[in-house]
């Protein structure tokens, strides 16, 4: 860890005034502090937003919910409204990290956690995300945890978040406060950049932007929601692949099939073409397998992560079979009833 200054922000204006390219917001700190100890991140100043009022609430917003950026992952997962109307998000949260980490990690921070690519952490080896222009040591290295979709020549890092996959499938938007005091919203598609030639630039945020909330749209009801995470051990492991689904079936046809994927891509992944080929169709295993093939058609695999293709195809088919009633629902698949 490099010596750094610390500023405890009193309000958003104060926080915003201290933000620039060499400072960093700290909320839960569950990822940032690890990275600072390893000098993967070396901010000159931390701007602590934990004492800013009003960022830790979950409130109605139209027919949806506004989740303050400082709401801890544990609280969000346990919130009665989330569990009832957005169970896929609750499941995704509980599939991530450990109880201690979820108590500390925040909604905003979770969205912005950094990749777990081992070469991002290994400061003795090149990494374009850590040190732009040095190269990608993951290529040709140990790639079990790396991405197969949305990668570039310069970076094959996977986005590690479970929560963000749940948010993405729900069509959540982040509320951003700009330096001039105005607020704007971005979908997660708009928030996350693809690595391209600058994998160090992970979002479209400016250094002095602050995520103040995540907005969930009105619940999809009735629907079947599911989060299935496949990992190397039963707890405290990042996803090899994960599948989040919000599915509606009417009159024997799929009328909605929102799908998001974790563990396989540079950012929480959605593929509109896959969803489109499901909607209007009669559920069948063959259809689900075809959807899986379509999903990974453009995948670029490494020797160490090619297994993710059959794994995500199978998992997707299993999730869709449960969500459409072809097979019995298991833990992780929930029914959301009509909203009273």
């Amino acid at each position, binding site marked *: 860890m*490099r010596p750094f200054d610390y500023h405890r922000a009193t309000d958003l204006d104060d926080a915003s005034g201290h933000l620039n390219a060499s400072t960093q917001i700290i909320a839960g700190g569950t990822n940032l502090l690890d990275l600072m100890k*390893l000098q993967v991140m070396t901010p000159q100043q931390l701007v602590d937003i934990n004492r800013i009022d009003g960022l830790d609430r979950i409130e109605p917003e139209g027919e949806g919910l506004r989740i303050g950026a400082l709401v801890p992952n544990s609280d969000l997962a346990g919130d009665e409204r989330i569990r009832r109307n957005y169970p896929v998000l609750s499941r995704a949260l509980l599939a991530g990290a450990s109880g201690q980490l979820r108590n500390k990690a925040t909604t905003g921070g979770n969205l912005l956690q950094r990749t777990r690519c*081992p070469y991002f952490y290994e400061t003795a080896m090149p990494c374009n995300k850590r040190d732009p222009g040095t190269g990608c040591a993951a290529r040709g290295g*140990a790639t079990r945890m790396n991405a197969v979709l949305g990668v570039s020549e310069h970076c094959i890092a996977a986005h590690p978040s479970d929560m963000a996959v749940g948010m993405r499938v729900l069509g959540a938007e982040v509320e951003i406060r700009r330096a001039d005091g105005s607020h704007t919203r971005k979908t997660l598609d708009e928030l996350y950049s693809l690595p391209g030639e600058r994998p160090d630039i992970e979002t479209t945020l400016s250094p002095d932007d602050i995520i103040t909330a995540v907005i969930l749209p009105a619940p999809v009801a009735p629907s079947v929601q599911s989060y299935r995470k496949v990992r*190397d*051990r*039963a707890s405290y*492991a990042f996803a090899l692949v994960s599948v989040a689904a919000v599915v509606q079936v009417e009159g024997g046809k799929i009328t909605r099939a929102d799908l998001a994927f974790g563990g396989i891509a540079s950012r929480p992944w959605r593929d509109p073409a896959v969803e489109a080929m499901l909607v209007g169709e009669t559920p069948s295993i063959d259809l689900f397998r075809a959807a899986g093939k379509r999903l990974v058609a453009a995948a670029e695999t490494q020797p160490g992560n090619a297994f993710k293709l*059959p794994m995500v195809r*199978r998992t997707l088919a299993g999730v869709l079979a449960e969500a459409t009633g072809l097979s019995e629902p298991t833990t992780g698949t929930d029914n959301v009833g009509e909203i009273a």
Partner: protein
Amino acid sequence: MTDMFRMDKPQPRLFDETVQGVIGKPLDRPEGLLKVTGRAPYAAEVPEANMVHGVLVRSTITRGRLTGIDKSALEGLSGILGVIRSPEFVRNSAQGMANEAPIQPEDHVAYFGQPMALVVAETFEAARDGAHRLRLSYETEHAEIDPTTTSEIDTKPDSFGDLDSAMAQADVTIDQKYSTPGQVSAAMEPHASIAWWEGDNVTLRGSYQMLRFNRNELADSLGIDPENVRILSPYVGGGFGSKLGIGSEAVAAAIAARELGRPVRVVMSRQHVFDMVLRRSETHQRLRLAAKADGTLLGIGHEDRVSNLPGEEFSEPTAMATHFMYGGENRLYNHEIARIHRTPSGSVRAPGEAVGMLALESAMDELAEVAGIDPVELRLRNLPEKHPEKGVPFSSRRFEDCLREGAKEFGWENRTPTASRREGDWFIGCGMSGAGRANMLVPSEARVTLEGDRAIVETDMTDIGTGSYAILTQIAAELLGLPMDRVETRLGDTRFPGASGSGGSVGAGSSGSSVFLAAKKIRARLAEAMGCAEEDLTLQDGIARSGNIQKPLSELAATAMTEEGGIKPGAMGKEFFQAGFGAHFVEIGVNAITGEARVRRMLGVFSAGRILNEKTATSQCIGGMVWGLGAALTEELQHDPRTGGIVSRDLANYHVASHADVPMIDVRLLPERDDQANPMQAKGIGELGISGAGAAVTNAIYNACGVRIRDFPATPDKIIAGLEALGR
């Protein structure tokens, strides 16, 4: 000098005569409350006055020579006291019982992650920052890092009879290859040392398993007399072999403390523990089994390739248990040691059995399948009368009872045919395996003092979480007729008599016997004071009785009685083969879609002579079984294919089994007395639980879904590949 009792013949079963009633009981650890309330100070937690902090700097090349140290990036940092580097620095930890300095490589680099220098500062934070900024320059040399392709191989063949002929004549054969990845001990407490000098004498507060050896290793590393070295390790937060030999952090701390004239603390980061501490070698194994139609073995072949750095004595003894578990006249071994430039390998819990039994017990399961014989029955048909290679009898061996009673308790007869039981998305199956771990006695000494109705036990034995404090207290309390709280056990100080240390499952039997013998001498003195024969003396709750005479110990031992006891191996270790045995039974679920395997229940039945404390012995077995589960399903060191450096170097990426992976584990300990083992009739149990455990898990996976995992661990990707190959 303590007179050393030599174990040449069976000894009376004194613990079956004593009446205090504490031996064997599932008693709590005397120090347990201190540990769970954070008051048991571990190595790094006792700061010395004026202490400064050192952080090791690792090599970031695989092989070569250090050519320079650039300290310019440290200029202007506050609190930096210096960059320490010395020809006395060690390349890696000493191997267990080395008793001499590890290799001191000077400028040579032999692996990625080797400790090269120590940055010392007034604060830990400054030292860590400085260590990160320090720039080392090197001349690099070509390095072999892949054990499967390197040409530098040491070979140790061994054989009995003619395995090839046996394979040709056999009705059924198995010839399969298995592999296991490297592992690390990943003890909860990272390696840590605080060193300080008083004149020519250095004291080291460290986290070590074998102080008698560690003292000599540190002295040899520093070029000083062992008399000038004192090591303190009263509490050790897990060792599993990784703290057997003196480590780089201890030597660096001592050198820095000498150079700076201040106490120096060096704590390895979790990443450094992965980089610099001895790992368990990966293994590549070939198992051949030749059997008659009825399953009787005609021969066993167990060939293996393991790896280590050039110059390291140790090599993972993969076939250790294969030598004695099962019969068959024709036996072949070929032990290959690939000399490669990775973090060197050493002893990790149950070296040999932990990985060798994965292959042997998998192969036995495959043989049972091919021969159409129940796996339990196959093992029962192959229990050798005598050690199949040495020809000597076994001491006590209840392997058959472990198999039979385990099968009964588990409900083995309800096991269904391969891939025939399904609950929703889950294939359900059961598997089993045998377990075995050789028992050894090594020299050990202890001192016991009885003063009034209180006793003190002193030995440089360690308690690495195993329960040494508990059992040594129980042994003295039982023999002296005292309640537990009247006996204080002091461990982990080289000023006490030298013990076996903790390793190789020898601690309980060896150091326990030394306490037993010292306490027995005090019994003899009490008998003399009572005017009776030793066998007529009864001691209980501080009262001595003989016939109708009764006297309190407070009177008999008003003047303190101090005795030393010592034990060393003798004829019993040569004339008999001693081992603990067991059997594992596992029920597992395998997800038919995602390939995830989740153990649903696990039973281990073991026999290891007299059990000294049922609770700590059971905990040892559970711990071993959990590790076996992890070896089967999750644990794997990943190396960078270009540098050989360890990639999975923290506990988020190196997957020890999590709580959610571990179901309720049942352990049963069968009553047994091993008269040949030692005067307590007890055998080692610390490493028995891991032996074979993982094979029972993968055998259960096969029974569940028909996928045979031969490359450990059985991660979901491998199971999916197997399912797809079967069209599932």
